[in-house]
């Protein structure tokens, strides 16, 4: 079997959507933070907490909706703690992010071990998954139907979120405030926009999106919580919004690039390539992508300068 036989299949196309979803949610969250002027590395932790609480919520309520809501609320609360420290107590952004991620990584295992006596996975908990849905009409289109239809509800929600975030950032008064606070906080303050309040709101959105990404991990991508299951996706999301230059569409496209890299890394394992190199793909892609983007930007700047 060669590489193309694997890539040009509807299964592969389907898989890209499946693996892009968590990155897309968190990348949109990271993007909103960034537009408000906050380099948010706490998304890794938000995702983990969301994933665990999705499992807990759905186990104890036996309701999918309550499960997802629990995930979102838990992630939101963590994001508010982050906001309180960063905005009110003037903590260092990166340090607070690292502290939260470490606390989330250990804290989720702590909670897991207390709730089900296992430090690895939550399979002994009877948690639920968000169902997959077939889209009428589209599902009957050959090829495209097989790729686009039949996904997890949250996958469609993530695509919807791209539109919502686009409208929020580019078309709403709140988006204008968020952007102005990110671009020039002093100028924003001078025209009466509260920088702290606006950033709080931006971090609330980030918390919600991080929670949705986490919920998808444990209630869609797989049906359990596993320790450190975010596996760097929060950091990858940060890279994706960076590559997408902080625009919703750019973030959406670059999330897909990471999704493709991620999908490749799980499908190419049937080939005789060393598994480690395939697992490296998403991370190498990130760096190569950032270099290409930077080169392009430099090239454009030079061109503009030449015209002057």
């Amino acid at each position, binding site marked *: 079997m060669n590489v193309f036989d694997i890539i040009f299949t509807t299964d592969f196309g389907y898989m890209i959507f499946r693996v892009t979803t968590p990155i897309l949610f968190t990348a949109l969250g990271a993007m909103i933070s960034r537009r408000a002027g906050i380099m948010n590395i706490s998304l890794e932790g938000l995702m983990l907490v969301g994933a665990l609480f999705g499992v807990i919520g759905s186990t104890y309520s036996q309701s999918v909706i309550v499960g997802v809501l629990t995930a979102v609320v838990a992630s939101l609360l963590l994001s508010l703690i982050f906001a309180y420290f960063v905005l009110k107590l*003037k*903590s260092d952004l*990166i340090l607070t992010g690292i502290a939260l991620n470490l606390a989330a990584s*250990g804290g989720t295992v702590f909670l897991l071990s207390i709730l089900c006596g296992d430090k690895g996975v939550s399979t002994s908990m009877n948690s639920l998954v968000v169902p997959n849905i077939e889209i009428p009409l589209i599902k009957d289109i050959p090829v495209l139907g097989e790729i686009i239809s039949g996904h997890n509800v949250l996958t469609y929600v993530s695509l919807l979120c791209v539109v919502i975030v686009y409208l929020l950032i580019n078309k709403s008064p709140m988006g204008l405030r968020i952007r102005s606070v990110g671009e020039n906080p002093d100028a924003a303050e001078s025209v009466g926009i509260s920088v702290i309040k606006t950033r709080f709101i931006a971090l609330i959105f980030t918390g919600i999106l991080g929670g949705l990404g986490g919920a998808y991990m444990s209630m869609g991508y797989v049906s359990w919580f596993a320790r450190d299951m975010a596996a760097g996706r929060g950091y990858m999301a*940060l890279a994706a919004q*960076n590559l997408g230059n902080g625009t919703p569409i750019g973030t959406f496209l670059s999330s897909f690039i990471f999704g493709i890299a991620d999908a490749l890394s799980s499908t190419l394992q049937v080939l005789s390539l060393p598994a480690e190199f395939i697992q490296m793909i998403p991370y190498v892609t990130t760096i190569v992508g950032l270099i290409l983007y930077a080169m392009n930007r430099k090239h454009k700047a030079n061109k503009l300068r030449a015209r002057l």
Partner: protein
Amino acid sequence: MSVKRIEKIMDIAKTLVAVLISFAITILLICLVSSTPGETIRDFFLGPFDTVRRMGNIIEMAIPILFTSCAICIMYSTGHINMGTSGCFYIGGLSGSAIAFGFQSISGLHPVLCLIFGGLIGALTAAIPAVLRIKWDINEIVSSLMINYIVQYLGAYLLRNFMLDPTAGFNASIAYEETAKLPTIISGTRIHFGLIIAIAVVVFSYVFLKKTKWGYQIRMMGYNDRFAVYSGMGVTGILLSSQMIGGFLAGMGGATEVLGMYNRFEWAAAPTAGFDGIMVAAIAHRNPVMVPIAALFLAYIRVGADVISRTSDVPAEIVSIIQGVIIMLVGAQMFLSKLRHREIVKASARELAKEESK
């Protein structure tokens, strides 16, 4: 008391209050979770001092953290946040191991070669985000996090294909030559010669950062890089060299750790030492002199958590919650800022009164 003195005391006070708050949270958590809270709390706080072996554990655990946190002190003093120490530490351990079993040498020289090679590879790893920053202005936080993952997979590949000893019975490299290992220096514990190297690294970092022109330039760049450029410092050179020195220390730490504590290379993933370094450097306010205290403290609560995870029903992961709380409070500028402000105002008023009465 001068204002500067008050600021220093307040910094220490803030750290102590942060520790106390985190301990209060720990006690609360233990009471909630444990069926034998009294004993568990005792074991957590006093357990690490019960036996010589456990006290030894504290010091063993602090050794790698000393290396990485000194590395962070130097790297972060430029204001450049390279998160790659974790990768440097891992790859340093792997490269040091390669020399430790791949070559024959005399016992005094062999570990030195391992440490230098581990350090060099660590320095090269740490240089990548710096070069990306200098050449293309790529955010070093993102790139260094990605490099940590790449380095881990590369290490796993090298271990599986070139270093594996099939007779070991588990995923580990060929056993090190006896000449390469760092000897144990205190019997009854596993404290090894690496402790002395680590102390030397702390002293070096202090002198380098606080007493040399090079270190001054590094710190000046961190305070205000425009001023550094304006006054004619070669900022790119300072940035690159500081990151490489930090990477060297972290890589050397990795090599020291494997040669002192293991007989074969067996890390499946990067140990936590890299991120521990970031925390310890933060608690120590990036001052190498304070690093040993902060590192010992971190090791102490880890050993405490280890003890209770074996003697009670509380999982050892409780420690990461304690760490998180401490780091967040220590990092918070406004935490206890009113008290600081009041003390400084009081001191200044006293000074003023003294001046006027003259």
